[in-house]
């Protein structure tokens, strides 16, 4: 995982800082609202959307349940078509393979298509260490790279920046951009000028892939700007780093995903450019094609029967755009290149629950279910969140000699709820206690861990006569 995210505080603290960033709050609210509406419109156009979602889910289930079969088939087809397949157990191994492949070409520069997987492995930093410069060519990735910033959204990594901030960045970092204005068209033009010669000179391109077709060995990249086509077509060598879960069984299956992905992602009927290639082609495109297949925690995720569905993800980011938590905290608070609801379930599975940050992520949700509703491959994110919460609680319990205060409270609540008599007694006690702190039925300040509630909210006082008591009095 990108080392830049290492040492991020747990979600609640990181979120507190983000919530205080007025500019970011405004940028995010505007951007997510825009894309939510676009998505809703183009999804609403398709009467068979639910059938597509179901097919998208089922195809992933078929793939994942027989992943070994499909990976072997994929490798065979890619190789037969002139490509070379490499396998990487983890991020470090993937970075080593890519670095070696670049070094073998003798080049010191590479152009990159936006790729979540290489963000995940922290490839750019690894290349830098080896003296290789990687140019991000997607506009938003470029903004992040030039600003030495971190991505905060899967589709639009610079969603937290507005036009004025981007103009300042371009003026500061791009040669010949002193006079650039803040109109997005002008900024995009500046990026075009900046990258043009890099594309035309590039000898090595690095990409991810949205899909890999096992049956044919075909790789698919879905994009908008044409930077993808540049990187996939002009260089002599193409290296694609792809997670093992990106495989789909057949060419026909793309008819489902090429409908689901653009509408869910950019809110378009189809994105401007989709490129598909199978191995290498004489006289068209790179002469060398390397496919690096990454595990990086995916097999651990696969082993969990409830968590497995997380691997359905096609990285559309629809769940981010509808998430009320993400909309307010932004992506950095999740401490990973995968933010939002999908990040909250993906990171603790890919990286494990070894850090405070990763343990905090499953709790960074109200379980409102908006993510599940829009997910094009029907990942029941709330279900996985709750499942991971249980894992975190159990692991924490197993690690400590004494139970956490929360665990003690939960056990006490279980004890109370295990008997109506105890519940009645607890109700009497609570009503009694609240008389001390309540004024006109309103509690402005609660003690202990409950103070988090009353910092900004009044709390009601427990009723003097609980319902069960009233029922006893009136209906018996």
């Amino acid at each position, binding site marked *: 995982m990108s080392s830049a995210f290492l040492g991020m505080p747990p979600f609640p603290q990181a979120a507190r800082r983000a919530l205080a960033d007025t500019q970011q709050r405004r940028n995010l609210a505007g951007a997510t609202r825009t894309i939510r509406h676009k998505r809703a419109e183009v999804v609403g156009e398709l009467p068979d959307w639910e059938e597509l979602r179901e097919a998208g889910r089922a195809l992933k289930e078929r793939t994942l349940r027989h992943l070994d079969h499909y990976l072997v088939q994929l490798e065979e087809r890619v190789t037969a078509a002139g490509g070379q397949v490499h396998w990487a157990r983890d991020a470090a191994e993937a970075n080593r393979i890519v670095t070696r492949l670049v070094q073998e070409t003798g080049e010191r520069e590479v152009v990159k298509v936006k790729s979540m997987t290489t963000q995940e492995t922290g490839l750019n930093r690894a290349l830098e260490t080896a003296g290789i410069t990687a140019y991000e060519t997607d506009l938003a990735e470029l903004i992040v790279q030039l600003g030495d910033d971190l991505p905060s959204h899967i589709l639009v990594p610079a969603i937290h920046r507005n036009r004025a901030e981007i103009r300042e960045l371009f003026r500061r970092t791009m040669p010949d951009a002193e006079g650039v204005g803040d109109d997005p068209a002008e900024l995009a033009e500046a990026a075009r000028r900046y990258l043009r010669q890099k594309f035309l000179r590039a000898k090595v391109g690095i990409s991810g892939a949205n899909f890999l077709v096992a049956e044919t060995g075909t790789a698919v990249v879905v994009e908008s700007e044409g930077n993808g086509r540049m990187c996939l077509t002009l260089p002599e060598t193409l290296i694609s780093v792809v997670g093992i879960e990106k495989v789909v069984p057949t060419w026909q299956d793309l008819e489902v995903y090429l409908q689901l992905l653009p509408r869910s992602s950019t809110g378009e009927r189809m994105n401007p450019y989709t490129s598909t290639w199978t191995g290498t082609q004489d006289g068209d495109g790179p002469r060398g094609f390397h496919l690096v297949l990454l595990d990086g925690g995916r097999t651990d995720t696969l082993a969990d029967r409830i968590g497995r569905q997380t691997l359905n993800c096609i990285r559309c980011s629809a769940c981010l755009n509808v998430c009320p938590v993400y909309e307010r905290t932004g992506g950095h608070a999740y401490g990973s290149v995968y933010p939002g609801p999908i990040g909250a379930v993906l990171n603790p599975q890919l990286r494990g629950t070894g850090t405070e940050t990763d343990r905090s992520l499953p709790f960074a949700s109200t379980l409102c279910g908006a993510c599940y509703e829009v997910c094009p491959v029907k990942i029941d994110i709330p279900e996985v969140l*709750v499942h991971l919460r249980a894992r975190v609680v159990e692991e924490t319990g197993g690690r400590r000699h004494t139970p956490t205060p929360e665990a003690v409270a939960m056990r006490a609540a279980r004890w109370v709820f295990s008997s*109506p008599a105890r519940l009645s007694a607890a109700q009497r006690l609570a009503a009694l206690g609240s008389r001390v702190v309540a004024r006109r*039925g309103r509690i402005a300040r609660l003690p202990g861990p409950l103070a988090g509630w009353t910092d900004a*909210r009044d709390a009601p006082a427990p009723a003097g006569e609980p319902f069960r008591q009233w029922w006893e009095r009136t209906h018996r």
Partner: protein
Amino acid sequence: MRTALFITCFNDTMHPATGRAVVTLLERLGCTVDFPAGQTCCGQMHFNTGYQRDCIPLVRRFGEVFAGYDAVVAPSGSCAAMIRHHHARVAEVAGDRGLLEAVRTAPPVYELSEFLVDVLEVTDVGAYFPHRVTYHPTCHSLRMLGVADRPLALLRAVRGIDLVELPDATQCCGFGGTFALKNSDTSVAMGADKVRGVLDSGAEVLCAGDNSCLTHIGGLLSRLRTGVRTMHLAEILAATERTTATEPTTATERTTATGAPSHAVATGGGPR
């Protein structure tokens, strides 16, 4: 048909007026409900916070208490959703076949608006409530139960009501159970936006089918002294011309039931 009321532990302890309103309403509609005294809690807090093993006895109790009824009605979308969607999972975690069987054969659990519209087949419950009201569809009632516009259909039929639209109604209010404590900053930020929507709507009453969410939003409305009060759907539907004369009129009074049951009876209509 034997119908049981599952009041939920939270309503029982914190919002008994809602329970009284449900009883008043159902009895007015000619439906007799039973309140099995052995009931406690559905286990939602434990389950959603990661203490799945701690809910096993609660799920078992629920099954035992409500076995034999034809239907269970609960004035809470999230508790109804917990029972419908997750009790089976708890039984699975317990690895208890008997419990799984009990969950499978348990009576259907309806959220109040579902019970009224689908089981009793009524949308006009004969209520009278001459106030400007806005409705917040709570997430679990909306997305897990799919109550759709049942609550709104019920509200629209209330005489005297001025029902106004809530901006961004379907966005979560930020309550989220223990999320409200674990991530209180984010929870409050979401709640603040919900409050803005409520204020923009011009409503004097915010209505929903879950008192948990209402406690969160209401806590913010009260802290800010907005004068807007929160009411459970049941309380509005239970109101008639006879009861409106004595109903509470300020935002905080709904919670003043402490030691003053006679006052709080107002929205519930009182015993027969």
